[in-house]
C-alpha cells in the first residue's frame, strides 16, 4: 500500500466518513479511475493524472443505491459538481469532496484562472494563470485570419465525439450533435456547425477543465474556444458557471422593460 493511497483512504473513510472512494489508480502501467469500498487496498493511487472523475461519477451514480462517495476533486471538478447539484442530478449530501490543489505544471497546462478548491486536503495551492496566450493572440488577429485558423483546426476534426463523451457538463439525454438536422451524418470533417453548436451549448456551463482539449486526438485547441466564449458571457451577463446558487442568464428574463408580467 503506497503512502498516497493510505493518506487518501484515511481522509475519505476516517475523516469524511465516506463509504466509497473514487480516485485514479495505476495498474500494470495504466492509469484508470477506480471505485474503492471501505477497507479495500487502494494500491498505487495517482493524483498527477488530470481526469474528470465527475464524469465517471455521473455514469455510476444511478446504480449507487445508498452510501456516500468521496471524490478527488480539483477546482474544476468542484465546479462541475455544482452544476450537477444545480440541476438536481446528484444529492449533495451523498457526495463528499477531497480537495486537490493542482500542481504548477498542471495549472500552466490548463491556463487555469481558478485552480484552488474551496477546501484543500492534498497539495499546495498554486497561483492562478492570468491569461491564455493563444486566445490573446487570436483576438489580436484580423477576423479573416482568425477564421482561417479555426477553419484549419476544425478541418482536423474526425468527429470521434471524445469531447462530448469526456465532458463532465454534457448531460443532455439526447445529444443535438447526433441529430442529422444539425450535423449531417456522413462526412468527415463534420463542418463548422458541429463545433459552433457545441461551444454555444456549453456557453453557460463550461467549467474550463480542459478535458475536451486533452482527449481530442486531433489536438484542436478547444479549451481556448471555451475560454473565449466564457469571457464573453462574463462580460455580457457577469455570470460564471460553477455555483449552485446562480441561475444561467440564458434561462432568466430581462430585468427591465416588461411592465405587464
Amino acid at each position: 500500500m503506497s503512502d498516497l493511497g493510505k493518506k487518501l483512504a484515511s481522509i475519505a473513510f476516517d475523516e469524511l466518513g465516506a463509504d466509497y472512494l473514487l480516485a485514479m489508480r495505476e495498474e500494470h502501467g495504466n492509469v484508470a479511475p477506480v471505485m474503492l469500498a471501505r477497507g479495500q487496498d487502494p494500491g498505487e493511487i495517482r493524483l498527477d493524472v488530470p481526469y474528470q472523475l465527475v464524469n465517471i461519477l455521473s455514469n455510476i451514480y444511478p446504480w449507487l443505491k445508498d452510501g456516500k462517495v468521496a471524490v478527488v476533486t480539483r477546482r474544476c471538478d468542484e465546479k462541475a459538481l455544482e452544476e450537477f447539484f444545480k440541476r438536481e442530478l446528484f444529492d449533495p449530501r451523498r457526495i463528499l469532496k477531497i480537495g486537490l490543489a493542482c500542481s504548477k505544471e498542471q495549472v500552466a497546462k490548463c491556463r487555469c484562472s481558478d485552480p484552488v478548491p474551496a477546501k484543500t486536503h492534498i497539495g499546495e495551492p498554486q497561483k492562478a494563470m492570468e491569461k491564455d496566450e493563444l486566445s490573446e493572440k487570436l483576438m489580436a488577429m484580423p477576423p479573416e485570419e482568425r477564421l482561417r485558423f479555426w477553419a484549419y483546426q476544425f478541418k482536423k476534426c474526425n468527429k470521434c465525439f471524445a469531447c462530448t463523451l469526456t465532458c463532465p457538463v454534457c448531460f443532455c439525454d439526447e445529444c443535438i450533435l447526433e441529430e442529422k438536422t444539425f450535423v449531417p451524418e456522413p462526412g468527415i470533417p463534420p463542418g463548422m456547425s458541429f463545433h459552433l453548436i457545441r461551444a454555444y451549448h456549453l456557453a453557460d456551463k463550461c467549467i474550463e477543465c480542459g478535458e475536451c482539449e486533452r482527449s481530442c486526438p486531433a489536438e484542436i485547441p478547444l479549451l481556448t474556444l471555451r475560454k473565449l466564449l466564457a469571457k464573453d458571457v462574463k462580460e455580457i451577463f457577469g455570470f460564471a458557471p460553477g455555483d449552485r446558487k446562480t441561475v444561467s442568464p440564458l434561462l432568466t428574463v430581462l430585468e427591465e422593460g416588461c411592465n405587464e408580467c
Partner: protein
Amino acid sequence: MSDFNPTILAFCCNWCSYAGADLAGVSRLQMPPNVHVVRVMCSASVKGEYILKAISQGVDGVLVLGCHIGDCHYMTGNHRTAKRIPVVQKLLKDVGFDERRVRLDWVSAAEGEKFQRVITEFVEEIKGLGPNPVREVMS
C-alpha cells in the same frame, strides 16, 4: 460588389413580425428580394443552433425578428431571445465571423414600414460586408 446578391434568412415571430411583414406586403412597400422569411411561433423558438447552422452553411446573414419587449404573446419569450442572440454573436466573433451578420430587432404587427426599413438596412449592410467567407475557408 454591386452584383453580389446576399442570401438572408429572417426568422419572424408569428404574432408580431410575420404580421408586420404581411402588412408591409399588403401596403406594397418595396424591399430587396434577398430575404427568405421563416415563420416561427415565437422568436424564442429560434435556437442558437439554427443561426449557427445557417451561418456555417454559407448563409450571408440571419435576422431574428420578434415582438417588442413586453408585447410577447408568451409573456417573456422574447426576453430569452434578447439574452441568447448576444451570445451567438460573440461566439461568431470569436471564431472570426463578423457579428453584424446576425441581427436581432423588434417589429410589431403594426410596423410594416419598420419591417421594410430593417430589411433594407440589413441587406445593405450585408452587401457591404461581402459574401459569407465560410465556403471559401472550409473548402
